């Protein structure tokens, strides 16, 4: 479920790689809302990294409202993803993500309508998948 490998020679710090991976897994529905995450120590052992690094990633995700910690039980995907970001920050993050898509699309010589329809298609697929994926 959380199987992923780190790129230790990457310019992205390890804790950030974990944050990005979990964010993506939640967005894709690979991690269900309310699902429990492995204890930080277990994940650290699996990835062969310092447990504090995982703890730090979890903390950031809790702060951002993606995960929540239930004391004495563990860390879970937040039952309902809270919007903890301001409108400005949401805009900034979306703009950043779109920028990546834009560069790639330009390099590959796609037109705006093509990009738009590709996005819409993926959006729909994602909707059906997360609904069929059994949101209990």
């Amino acid at each position, binding site marked *: 479920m959380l199987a992923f490998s780190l790129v230790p020679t990457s*310019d*992205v710090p*390890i804790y950030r790689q974990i944050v990005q991976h979990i964010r993506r897994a939640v967005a894709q529905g690979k991690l269900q809302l309310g699902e429990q995450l492995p204890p930080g120590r277990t994940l650290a*052992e699996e990835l062969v990294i*310092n447990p504090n690094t995982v703890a730090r990633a979890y903390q950031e995700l809790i702060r951002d409202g993606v995960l929540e910690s239930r004391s004495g039980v563990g860390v879970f995907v937040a039952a309902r993803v809270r919007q903890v970001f301001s409108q400005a920050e949401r805009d900034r993050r979306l703009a950043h993500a779109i920028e990546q898509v834009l560069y790639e699309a330009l390099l590959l010589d796609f037109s705006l309508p093509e990009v738009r329809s590709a996005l819409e298609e993926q959006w729909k697929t994602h909707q059906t998948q997360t609904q069929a994926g059994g949101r209990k």
Partner: protein
Amino acid sequence: MSTATTEPPVIEIDHLTKYYGRREVISDLSLQVARGTIYGFLGRNGMGKTTTIRTFLGLEDATRGSARVFGLDSRTLPPEARARIGYLPEGHHVYGWMTVKECGQFQASYYPAWNQDIFETVLTHFRLTAKMKAGHLSRGQRAGLCLALTLAPEPELLVLDDPALGLDPVARRSLLQSMLYVTRKADRTIFFSSHLLSDVERVADRIAVLDGKVLRADCTVEKFRQQIRHFVLKFRDQPPPTPNFPGLLESFRTDRELALTVVNYTPQMENRLEALQPMSIEPVDLTLEDAFISYVGERGEKTFFTNGKDAR
């Protein structure tokens, strides 16, 4: 994570200076390692890492300054304190005529707290068996044996001098796993030197960088990465002469670009960059390795294939 602040540091080095004859190898070095920390000790070869380690272990005398381990003066560490330290010297030396099992028995005879389970677990990790002759082992296997011998007494403080030297990727991973395994108990401390920055990034809480006899950084890995920044400035024409300001580590120029690596980035530096009036300033993320190389590499301007003269 380190806990109580009242507790004395496990390792405490205070204004350590060391001369070999007339040659100064360590200059006024101070550092502290808190209990429960995995501490990575970095620096290029010949910068005094091994000497530092040997001095705080009491194997060499300081010319000036002092060192303490567990709050005790390094020069007079009693045997009880030494028994709490596991030291893996550089080079993985073994008694070649002994078998793996005999090495274990020999070492165990010195340590009342010998844990045979740990010894065997580490051996298995490195695929070693009792009957193998120590002298016939490969480098990685020898490292595994040494590590097993060092870990089995369950030391409170583990000191590893370049433990990954000459290991293949699989053995290195086993080494890291063993290190993390040891520190599952919160009161265990590891101090290790290494050149493998991706390994350091995986396991270290904090790093110290020794450069030219002097300690230049002592912080978390993350902090180190944040402090060293890299910018690419694009110009319409040839870039202006490289500005010289404190904190500039490295610069690199091409036809229309100027790449600068700086340490301790401040808003003032941003103004400096703006003042060059580039078309754009693009920050570039560095890997820990890039950051380290910029930090301890040769300082000054580098030009591409031009022997220091202006490009073209």
